[in-house]
């Protein structure tokens, strides 16, 4: 384990890549370098949380496989837990934390599924998904068998939520498409892009419906997709999911990004059943009525109106889409006027996040980029396979200025998640490329009297111990900002269950308000800033 010194922050970019020192030797695999099949392009997953509750963020890296391994019936490369040192460095966890390989790991989600106060993990796969229970911070136990989560689809992202307010976490699994290497055509079968032979899909392949599992609160689940209304007219090629309360009614809704098919906005009807209102609310297509190739999702309240805004990364040739919430309960795609349209057209975005990374009081965005086709480096594509990642510095008017995320060279980025890895109050990033080293990007934001912050962690009563779905609102003299507590976000990623705020020069809050999933509203008067604040749910 290596401590990281301030000397590393020598560049102009906000983030500095320190993976080689922070996480030496950690790499992932995702099929062949040639990318002959669509299965080989997603890369692995990143799950961040404090699994041993020592106050430092830990990291689970979900690894993939190769077609040769899969065809031979060999398990995928196993996911790994790396324990954080709280200074931005990690070390491999001991054997008790070992995770098994499945068929081909993708992403996953973190949540306390049995209400014991310890974060558990769910890992999506092409093939059977996996559930691991956290044994009181001592290790993981494979609890897949008998959990009701032995799905055999191609899961990508997933979200834990308490959909019906019963105090037990439920699970939404985003599925991509039906993939059989024996029947899906390989590159060279006539699938072309810009005149070049490329791997086939998703167009022409069969999208697969997502799944909803009702949690029983003991680590077991029952699939209730149909009963909950979670079956759209047409399935989507699902890649990303975020939980949010888009309509402010206190229950948890879901937004799902779909590749080349309309995105879903599943509105919770208050009883844990859902209706897709994506089209009606203006969040399914871009402003021109075109379904985009949705990849990752970021979510945040950009203008402090108490309604979350959404940001979706898309394919090259399309713009990433910023869906701004409107007063009428819907969304308008307003990417260009925010300065997010043009800079994304040559890029293919994946992992993303919206937070106040520079702690100036306005939300920023980052986007991890990289193409799916190695052939993107051929003539006439207007893009490239390896791409630079982007940081969009936000202002208080909801406009963004593009900057490089780091000084790292162009690569084929995929999943990413944010957390305060070095306990300095700003959010850092862990990211994957489609294959290769795990990347750690430490945030070099200025700190001082003009850069106040607050991290809020919740302790809920009942089974939803991390308070997923709670809304935390910071109120000050002439403004407020709300953050929904979630672990789902980005692409094939899971975030720590906490609310992060940057306040700039604002040194004093009037109050912090927590609206718990149970309906309890709790107020913390004038909380001190620049710290981790833990709020325990009061009894009704």
């Amino acid at each position, binding site marked *: 384990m290596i401590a990281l010194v301030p000397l590393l922050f020598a560049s102009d970019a906000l983030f500095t890549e320190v993976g080689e020192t922070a996480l030496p030797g950690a790499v992932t695999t995702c099929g062949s370098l040639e990318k002959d099949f669509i299965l080989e392009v997603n890369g692995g997953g990143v799950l961040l949380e404090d699994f041993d509750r020592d106050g430092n963020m830990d990291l689970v890296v979900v690894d993939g496989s190769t077609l040769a391994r899969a065809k031979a019936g060999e398990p995928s490369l196993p996911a790994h837990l790396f324990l954080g040192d709280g200074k931005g460095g990690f070390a491999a966890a001991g054997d008790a934390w070992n995770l098994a390989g499945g068929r081909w790991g993708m992403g996953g989600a973190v949540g306390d599924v049995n209400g014991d106060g310890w974060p558990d993990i769910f890992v999506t796969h092409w093939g059977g998904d996996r559930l691991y229970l956290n044994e009181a911070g001592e290790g993981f136990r494979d609890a897949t068998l008998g959990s009701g989560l032995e799905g055999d689809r191609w899961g990508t992202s997933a979200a834990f939520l308490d959909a019906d307010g019963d105090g037990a976490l439920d699970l939404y699994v985003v599925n991509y498409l039906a993939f059989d290497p024996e029947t899906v055509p390989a590159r060279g079968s006539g699938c*072309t892009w*810009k*005149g*070049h032979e490329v791997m086939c899909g998703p*167009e022409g392949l069969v999208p697969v419906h997502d799944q909803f599992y009702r949690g029983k609160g003991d680590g077991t689940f029952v699939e209730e997709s149909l009963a909950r209304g979670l079956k759209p007219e047409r399935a989507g090629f699902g890649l990303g999911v975020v939980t949010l309360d888009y309509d402010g009614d206190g229950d948890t809704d879901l937004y799902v990004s779909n590749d080349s098919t309309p995105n879903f906005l599943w509105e919770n009807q208050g009883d844990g059943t859902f209706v897709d209102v994506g*089209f*009606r609310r*203006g969040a399914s*297509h871009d*402003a*021109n*009525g*075109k*379904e985009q190739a949705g990849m990752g999702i970021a979510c945040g309240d950009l203008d402090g109106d108490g309604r979350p805004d959404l940001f979706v990364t898309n394919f090259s*040739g399309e*713009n990433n889409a910023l869906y701004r919430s409107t007063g*009428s309960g*819907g969304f*308008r795609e*307003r990417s*260009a*006027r925010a300065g997010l*349209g*043009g*800079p*994304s*057209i*040559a890029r293919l975005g994946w992992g993303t996040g919206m937070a106040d990374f520079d702690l100036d009081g306005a939300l920023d965005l980052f986007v991890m980029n990289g193409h799916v086709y190695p052939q993107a480096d*051929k*003539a*006439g*594509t*207007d893009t490239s396979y390896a791409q630079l990642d982007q940081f969009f510095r936000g202002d208080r008017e909801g*406009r963004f200025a593009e900057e490089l995320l780091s000084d790292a060279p162009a690569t084929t980025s995929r999943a990413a998640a944010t957390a305060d890895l070095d306990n300095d109050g700003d959010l850092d990033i862990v990211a994957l490329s489609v294959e290769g080293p795990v990347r750690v990007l430490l945030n070099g934001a200025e700190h001082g009297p003009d850069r106040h912050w607050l991290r809020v962690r919740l302790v809920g009563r009942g089974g939803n111990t991390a308070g997923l779905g709670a809304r935390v609102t910071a109120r000050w003299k002439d403004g407020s900002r709300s953050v929904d507590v979630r672990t789902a976000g980005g692409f094939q990623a899971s975030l720590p269950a906490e609310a992060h705020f940057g306040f700039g020069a604002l040194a004093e809050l009037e109050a912090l308000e927590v609206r718990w999933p149970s309906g309890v509203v709790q107020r913390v008067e004038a909380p001190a800033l620049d710290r981790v604040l833990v709020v325990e749910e009061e009894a009704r």
Partner: protein
Amino acid sequence: MILAFVALLALGAPQQDVAPAEETTALEEEVSSPAVVLDRTPQEWPRAEAGAWSDWTPEVAPEGELLVHMRTAAIHYRRGDLPGSLTALFELLEAQPDYPPALYQAGAIYFRLRRYGDAAYAFERYLAVAPQQVGDTRALGHALYTLGRYEEAAEHYRRVIEASGEQPEALRGQALTEWRLGRPDEALALLGRVLELDPEHEEAQLWRARILHDEDRPEEALAAAEAARERDPFEPQAWFLLSRLYFEAGRDEEGEAARARFLQLDLVEQETRVIESQLLYAPQQPRLRARLIELRASTGDLAAVREAFAEWMQFDSRGVAVRMHAIDVLVSLEDREGADLAAASLKAVAGDDADAWAKLARYYATTRQRSLQVEAERRVGELRGR
């Protein structure tokens, strides 16, 4: 010939005579050229010495090798063989670096191939040797816009309009760019000017509706969207916007109806986009062309069906099967005028094909064109030895 070529480009080109239609026959017999050119880039083109084309004007007709290459490019283009056309232009530009019409037409082809960076490069090379022709290059603005280079696009549209006056397409392009740059009032004013110049400009009307919607001016947006739908009832985006506007106005029933129509048209549009993209790079795919027509017909979009057949027939200039298919489809759509044109076209290429004459005989019988029916039946009899 160049006028037809230019019409196909639909982008506006320097006007020059290149090849008379009757001289195209031999080339039309050739198979499409291989698509090796798609792995090449325009950055490979050699450069002419400074001032080499300073005397060139659009009125100067090509001669000799220039004429041959330009003619070949035009023929391939007319057949829908964009890689073939581009190959001819590459050869020309390697022999005669920076020949302005070749640069321009390469830019136009790259634009149609959706290789916008290459299109922009070709147009910029064209302007470097023919700066006085900036008024012809609104397509460069379109390419820059599509690449997300909005500031550059806005500047270029301004130059085009300054040089050649208020072209509706350049004004529309500038309007969209202004909107992308966060200047909606300027965008609306420009679109208003487009509609003054061309009241039937459906895209301008649709974009005006979109911007008004984005600016929270719902009544005006609704009126504009309804006008756009009137102009092109098969454009899914108009229905999409209408649906949004109806829902937001609480007119749920109309919203649902518009949404249903949008979904129907959009489904067709999605598959159409995929097929058209494939045909751009490999035009010799009758199965895809037939599917494209089937899709167009499924929405009742007669104009689009006719256009798709016309493109197919240009590519397959002597094809009997496509013309027989056209008669069937156009009859099923009750397009008598179109079916008559298809029948006339079939008659022109039927030659000694008895099945073609039999099809014509049946068509003429159905449409009670007796003398033509008799002639067709006579030919069937001759060919079948009766």
